[in-house]
């Protein structure tokens, strides 16, 4: 249809010339003079240029031609006003770039389907709880529940697994390293739909307590450690202190819910971890079974499991299927969506600003447009021209935006590393498409109104009068600027709340002395440390050596440290007024005698642990103040006994609270959580074994030596005590705090940056509007000054409209913010969603900034000379 024309313009012109010659020849034959013949031939042919033009138009895609012409014209216009173009392009680049970056994060984490076949049919089995309007999905299940599902859910192919990874020791060629292991049941890979690339996955026989030690390697681990050895299957490797047989290698693209180096059998059991809800279950409806069918079967099976849980009557509980993607993103979804909304609002402000700038530009071009219209240009052509101009701006802005997005992503990734999983993010074709769509959407959003506005110019008024902008136009710009201020207020309030949350968390009293302490963590999920005696031998000999190091104040070991995630467990009060059969939940931490002294956690009452609290002496425990506050309201806690697992322990001391991260309750990211400390020397074999499958214990050393020196010496001590026990990492207490507040820091930083950008854009918009209006009113103000108005009065009159606009925007923004901050409720700590301080300071701050933005242009009046104005008249 749009076949390229073969013939050139010159060929056509030549044909016309040939025609003239032939016609003239013919006329000469008929007896006309040479001169007459030529003239008549010309006359008969008519306007040659016109014919040529018709030929030219017929052969071309006219719209493309006009578009190219419009683009050329647009580029010329942009070059002619470089500061205007730069501001618009910069605004668009920042907004589009931020949106592309955030969208790529959202896309990678929330939108892109999981990388398994038929990802929509992959489910996680959850128990849905409803209690007084609060709803929650509990994903963790007991072994009893897993066995029910495994044996009775005939509509589903299912497998249990332990979500996330745990650090374990791996030894090859006499060198030990700390790597990440995930434990999964037989059938895990089959349910996901990804078979191993080499070998096979675990069998039911391997996936039972005491089963053969086997391992499936990830592709990257296989490459890194075994250099892609194709004969790896069947080889033995030293993992967790014992030989494991490699049975399979997963393909390169495979990933589970956590970055695992290798997978080992889950070995679910009805003792140990299986007693409590510690397993996840993934499932896939079998071929030919619908989701609804599978779900109703699960509900029926779940009813039996829930019955065994003895849940209180007023709690509604139902087992159901939830999509795996939703479960894997349940913690990141809300924060990311909030960031997405924020960045979208920034884009809106940016577009409003660009619209405003284009409108202003349009009104200064009224004369040009009117001239075009007056000499016969179509109004459509003007609209098209304006749209093309904004499109050109948006395309340039979009390209610059890609660079901004790339930089933004780098920053986001660095910020989120280790703390806030944002997935495998990269700029690809999807991102390019998203940016392209954004740019076009921006150009339409920002350009359509000015374009329509411009084509509607009143020719006579524009050509005769001195270009006084119509009031209608001013109103739209005013509305836009007020809207920008309102949106900026919403963003600033949200950012303010997040920043206040972060500030609150950072200023929480640590409860210990975090300076000069280094922590080194290591894995004891190891066959060589499968008894309490072996663990304590390791701790004793390593601590004795560390304590003897020069510059070391004290050294200790403990399962978890302040700010870290603790293990929780159930205990029971067995004597006194508050004795009860009721299990109470608390964090539990095993520690060596110098733990409190090393961290300088103050002892409130009673005594510290002593080296004499050994396996043969009476079992003792120390609790923290939070534990006493929560569980001992009526009786003396000191001297009371707690039943914990198989032992009865006496509370011999009370220590001060430190900030902890709990997996239960409503303590926030960090808080003072009830805690029971147990001496490591009195901890039983099976508890060590159980707890070490999840958590890596720590050495802590307080010293006055430089941290590089102390880490080196700790490393040396560790390798003398056990050369095959690698140290996972060294951390200071401040690093531990940063790690546990990663999500809050991410939210606060991103929102603060975005709202700062929003504020800047809104103020620039207001300033631009006020400057233009002062320029436009120069004549009027000049006359007023000449007639005796005072300068102050004139300034007030010029600045007031801007302040009014800002006040309206602030009022509307505060109202919207008050209605919408409820969404943030679950992400805020130490501050209410309607925090008056945040709202007031945002409102006052904005009014102040807006006041400056309107006053500065108004001050130009002082430089106005009334005499000049009058002479101009």
């Amino acid at each position: 249809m749009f076949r390229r024309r073969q013939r050139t313009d010159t060929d056509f012109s030549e044909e016309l010339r040939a025609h003239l010659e032939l016609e003239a020849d013919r006329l000469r034959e008929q007896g006309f003079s040479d001169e007459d013949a030529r003239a008549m031939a010309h006359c008969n042919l008519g306007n040659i240029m016109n014919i040529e033009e018709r030929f030219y138009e017929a052969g071309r895609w006219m719209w493309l031609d006009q578009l190219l012409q419009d683009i050329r014209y647009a580029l010329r216009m942009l070059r002619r006003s470089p500061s205007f173009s730069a501001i618009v392009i910069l605004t668009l680049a920042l907004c589009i770039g931020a949106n592309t970056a955030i969208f790529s994060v959202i896309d990678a984490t929330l939108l892109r389907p999981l990388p398994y076949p038929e990802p929509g049919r992959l489910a996680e089995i959850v128990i849905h709880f409803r209690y007084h309007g609060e709803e929650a999905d509990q994903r963790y299940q007991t072994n009893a529940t897993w066995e029910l599902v495994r044996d009775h859910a005939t509509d589903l192919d299912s497998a249990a697994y332990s979500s996330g990874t745990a650090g374990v020791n791996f030894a090859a060629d006499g060198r030990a390293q700390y790597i990440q292991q995930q434990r999964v049941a037989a059938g895990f890979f089959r349910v996901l739909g990804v078979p191993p690339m080499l070998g096979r996955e675990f069998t039911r026989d391997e996936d039972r307590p005491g089963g053969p030690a086997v391992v499936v390697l990830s592709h990257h681990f296989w490459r890194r450690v075994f250099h892609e050895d194709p004969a790896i299957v069947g080889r033995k490797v030293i993992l967790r202190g014992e030989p494991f047989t490699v049975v399979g290698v997963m393909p390169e693209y495979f990933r589970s819910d956590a970055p695992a180096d290798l997978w080992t059998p889950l070995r679910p059991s009805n003792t140990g971890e299986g007693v409590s809800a510690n397993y996840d279950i993934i499932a896939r409806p079998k071929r030919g079974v619908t989701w609804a069918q599978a779900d109703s079967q699960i509900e029926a099976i779940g009813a039996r499991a829930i019955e065994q849980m003895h849940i209180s009557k007023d709690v509604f509980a139902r087992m159901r299927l939830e999509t795996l993607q939703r479960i894997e993103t349940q913690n990141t979804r809300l924060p990311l969506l909030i960031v997405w909304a924020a960045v979208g609002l920034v884009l809106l402000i940016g577009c409003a600003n660009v619209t405003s700038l284009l409108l202003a530009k349009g009104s200064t071009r009224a004369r040009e447009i009117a001239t075009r219209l007056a000499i016969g240009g179509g109004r459509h052509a003007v609209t098209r021209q304006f749209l093309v101009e904004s499109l050109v701006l948006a395309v340039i802005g979009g390209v610059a935006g890609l660079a901004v997005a790339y930089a933004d992503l780098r920053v986001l990734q660095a910020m989120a590393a280790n703390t806030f999983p944002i997935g495998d993010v990269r700029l690809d074709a999807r991102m390019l498409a998203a940016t392209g769509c954004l740019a076009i959407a921006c150009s339409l959003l920002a350009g359509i109104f000015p374009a329509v506005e411009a084509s509607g110019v009143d020719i006579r008024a524009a050509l005769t009068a001195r270009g006084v902008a119509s009031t209608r136009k001013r109103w739209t710009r005013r509305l836009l600027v007020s809207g920008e201020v309102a949106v900026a207020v919403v963003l600033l309030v949200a950012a303010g709340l997040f920043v206040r949350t972060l500030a609150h968390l950072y200023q929480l009293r640590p409860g210990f002395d975090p300076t000069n302490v280094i922590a080194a963590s290591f894995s004891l999920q190891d066959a060589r440390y499968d008894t309490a005696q072996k663990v304590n031998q390791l701790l004793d000999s390593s601590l004795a050596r560390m304590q003897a190091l020069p510059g070391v104040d004290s050294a200790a070991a403990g399962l978890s440290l302040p700010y870290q995630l603790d293990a929780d467990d159930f205990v029971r009060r067995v004597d006194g007024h508050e004795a009860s059969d009721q299990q109470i939940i608390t964090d539990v931490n095993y520690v060596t005698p110098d733990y409190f002294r090393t961290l300088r956690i103050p002892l409130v009452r009673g005594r510290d642990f002593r080296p004499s609290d050994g396996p043969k002496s009476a079992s003792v425990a120390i609790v923290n103040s939070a534990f006493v506050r929560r569980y001992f309201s009526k009786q003396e806690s000191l001297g009371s006994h707690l039943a914990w697992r198989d032992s009865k322990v006496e509370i011999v001391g009370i220590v001060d609270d430190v900030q902890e991260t709990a997996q239960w309750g409503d303590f926030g990211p960090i808080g003072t959580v009830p805690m029971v400390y147990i001496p490591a020397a009195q901890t039983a074999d099976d508890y060590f074994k159980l707890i070490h499958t999840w958590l890596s214990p720590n050495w802590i050393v307080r010293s006055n030596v430089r941290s590089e020196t102390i880490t080196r010496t700790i490393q040396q001590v560790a390798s003398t005590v056990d050369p095959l026990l690698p140290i996972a990492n060294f951390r200071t207490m401040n690093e531990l705090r940063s790690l546990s507040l990663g999500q809050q820091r991410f939210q606060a930083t991103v929102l603060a940056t975005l709202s700062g950008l929003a504020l800047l854009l809104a103020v620039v918009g207001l300033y631009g509007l006020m400057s233009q209006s002062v320029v436009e009113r120069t004549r009027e103000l000049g006359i007023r000054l000449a007639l005796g108005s005072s300068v102050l009065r004139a300034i007030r009159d010029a600045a007031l409209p801007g302040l009014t606009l800002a006040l309206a925007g602030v009022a509307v923004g505060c109202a919207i913010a008050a209605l919408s901050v409820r969404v943030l409720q679950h992400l805020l700590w130490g501050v209410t969603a309607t925090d008056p301080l945040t709202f007031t300071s945002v409102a006052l701050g904005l009014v102040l900034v807006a006041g400056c933005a309107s006053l500065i242009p108004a001050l130009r009046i002082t430089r106005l000379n009334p005499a000049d104005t009058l002479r101009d008249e």
Partner: protein
Amino acid sequence: MVTREEKDRIALLQGTLDLLILRTLLFGPQHGQGIARAIQEQSDDVLLVDHGALYPALQRLETKEWISAKWGTSSNNRKARFYSLTKGGRKQLAHETSRWRKLAAAIGRVLGPEIIEG
């Protein structure tokens, strides 16, 4: 050379020029000026071919591939672009001719017998 008064000449109806061009080319290749002359002569100078309209029309027909063109030399040794009928052009001519005949006959019936004014 002008054998008739200007007022007796009839400007071509929209669309008929294409038909006449195709018809003229049935006798063999011809250049633009030749086509115009042929139409004029064969119609006893009744039909007026607007030379300005001719060349865009030729271009249109060429684009539709009803005629093809190549540069050649005219009888009086001038360089000229010669057009000839293609297979598609012949088919189009047959189709258009019968259509035109039907139309002319129909209009003739509507107008009735010719009234000769004194």
